[in-house]
């Protein structure tokens, strides 16, 4: 089942499921011709069967979720047409539920903010928007999963003064332009530098901010492979230092192990490096790689030199980039395996490693539908079956688990590589920075992705070719470069030299 979002001459349209009512169905309609808004839900047994809307399609994804999950809507049927914000996004009747909580009830688990703190900040500081509450209390400012409850508290505390206006679509406060507008201008106006974007698009700040600079750096890199020169100072520290900064300022190091395969020599080399640099802790990651924690920044290049000599490249565990291809044992060993999932995983990782993405990107290959590699919660997951390969897209674990949608089934490993490369490239070209494939697929609709990747064979080939073209510039191991002396200032502290003291 799919949903469709269209823009026809500037009007937003959304449809999903069976939106023409049949016998025994009920319909709920909200119509406001003056504002150009129309919403219709087709209901049967208090479950949504279909939805069609134009003018205001903000809640399309929510209706579609209720439809797919077969949620019983009877408890909020009387307000369903007003949209999800009327309820709060963590559940139904959020507002009444939150109001009944005691003041010491924890609302935001990430930052340990209780209901009383939030209500007090709202009333004493005169806060009216979600952003203000986030800024002052930190509630909902980290993972965002309590946003619905915080909005409900705002609504109940300030009453009519609260406006649940959609958060503005500008990239950040440095510009009025949206992500899509900026990307289009980069392409169409041939903007090839950060300065060019700031000047041409009238940036309001002299050199951007922590939101727009990393986004622009990615957009420029994706638009002009081989031409745009990466701007290290516009990358978050993890991508600048090619390791994950930890709370004590040390870094963690994850060598790439293609498809999760390794040899005794690989493990020996990692053990040797761990001894030599006195790594305090090692851990196997969720993506089947080995993480070395607690490395001093100054030691990184030397450690990378040793890893590089043993044949390792960066695992990019720190980046908005291709992370890992997780695999199961596959038919070479497993008595249930239908295909060589490990070998295919290695090929996929060799194809995709090093590529920068709007957000992190994870792959997995399972050798049979038992799906031991958990391929259906990955950005792209391959589930092998006897007759070929199912390609699943748009999944993730994390704050809000999303199960993949089935994109299509293909017959050969070569097709898996081609479709994967094309899908990755479509996401690289059209996803917003920091938007994972799960919300991206929901925003553009699975139907659109299928049309671009499955139906349009010529377009798919072009996407695949563009991906392979950009990979020739991306597949340069950043660890080896730095081990050989690149960006030395990043890893070398200054010292006070008494001989240089001046009068």
């Amino acid at each position, binding site marked *: 089942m799919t949903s469709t979002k269209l823009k026809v001459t500037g009007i937003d349209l959304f449809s999903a499921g069976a939106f023409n009512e049949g016998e025994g169905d009920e319909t709920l309609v909200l119509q406001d011709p003056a504002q150009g808004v129309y919403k219709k839900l087709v209901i049967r047994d208090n479950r949504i069967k279909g939805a069609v809307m134009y003018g205001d399609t903000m809640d399309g994804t929510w209706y579609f979720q209720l439809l797919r999950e077969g949620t019983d809507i009877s408890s909020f049927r009387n307000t369903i047409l007003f949209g999800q914000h009327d309820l709060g996004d963590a559940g139904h009747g959020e507002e009444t539920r939150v109001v009944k909580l005691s003041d010491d009830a924890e609302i935001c688990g990430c930052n340990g903010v209780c209901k009383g703190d939030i209500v007090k900040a709202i009333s004493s500081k005169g806060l009216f928007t979600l952003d203000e509450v986030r*800024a*002052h209390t930190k509630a909902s400012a980290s993972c965002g999963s309590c946003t619905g409850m915080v909005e409900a508290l705002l609504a109940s505390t300030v009453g009519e003064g609260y406006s649940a206006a959609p958060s503005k679509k500008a990239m950040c406060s440095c510009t009025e332009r949206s992500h899509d507008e900026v990307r289009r201008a980069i392409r169409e106006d041939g903007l090839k530098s950060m300065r060019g974007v700031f000047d041409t698009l009238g940036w309001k*700040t*002299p*050199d*951007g*901010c*922590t939101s727009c*600079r*990393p986004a622009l750096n990615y957009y420029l890199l994706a638009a002009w492979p081989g031409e745009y020169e990466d701007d*290290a*100072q*516009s990358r*978050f*520290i993890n991508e*600048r*230092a090619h390791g994950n*900064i930890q*709370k004590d*300022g040390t870094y963690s190091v994850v060598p790439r192990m293609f498809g999760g395969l390794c040899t005794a020599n690989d493990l020996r080399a990692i053990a040797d490096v761990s001894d030599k640099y006195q790594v305090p802790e090692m851990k196997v990651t969720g993506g089947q790689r080995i993480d070395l924690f607690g490395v001093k920044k100054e030691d990184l290049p030397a450690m990378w030199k040793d890893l590089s000599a043993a044949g390792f490249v960066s695992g990019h565990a720190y980046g908005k980039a291709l992370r890992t291809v997780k695999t199961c044992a596959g038919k070479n060993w497993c008595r249930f395996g239908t295909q060589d999932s490990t070998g295919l995983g290695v090929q996929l990782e060799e194809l995709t490693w090093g590529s920068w993405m709007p957000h992190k990107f994870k792959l997995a290959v399972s050798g049979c539908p038992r799906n031991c590699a958990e391929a259906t919660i990955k950005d792209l997951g391959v589930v092998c079956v006897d007759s070929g390969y199912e390609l699943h897209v748009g999944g993730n674990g994390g704050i809000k688990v999303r199960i993949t949608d089935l994109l299509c089934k293909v017959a050969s490993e070569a097709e898996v590589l081609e479709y994967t490369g094309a899908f990755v490239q479509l996401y690289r070209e059209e996803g917003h920075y920091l938007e994972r494939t799960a919300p991206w697929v929901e925003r553009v609709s699975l139907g659109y992705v299928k049309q671009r990747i499955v139906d349009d064979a010529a377009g798919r080939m072009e996407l695949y070719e563009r991906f392979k073209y950009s990979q020739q510039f991306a597949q340069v191991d950043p660890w080896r470069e730095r081990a050989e002396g690149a960006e030395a*200032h990043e890893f070398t*502290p*200054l*010292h*006070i*030299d008494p001989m*240089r*003291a*001046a*009068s």
Partner: protein
Amino acid sequence: MSDWIAIAQLEDIPQLGARKLQTESLDIAIFRTGNDQVFALRDRCPHRGGPLSQGIVHGQAVSCPLHNWKIDLQSGQVQGPDEGCVHTYAVKVEDGVVYLSLAAAESAA
């Protein structure tokens, strides 16, 4: 003042970037803005001790790499609505050489 210490060439510090200066007792972050102003602050965020030298420099501020607290490079003041202050040190650039004075170390409380 006779306590100016030459610590680096201006070009040793990347534009819109920083270098960490290690001393025996503490780390100092030396920042260079987009228009080549240089600032020195203690390399420690008042929030959770994050190394400010690793943050993104924008305008005349740096954002801490750990939790994105924003600190004004001139005053060392944390930008609202967060609250706090970072020690600042006097710096000057002459003939492309960056000088630091540790005498003012305790001035910004």
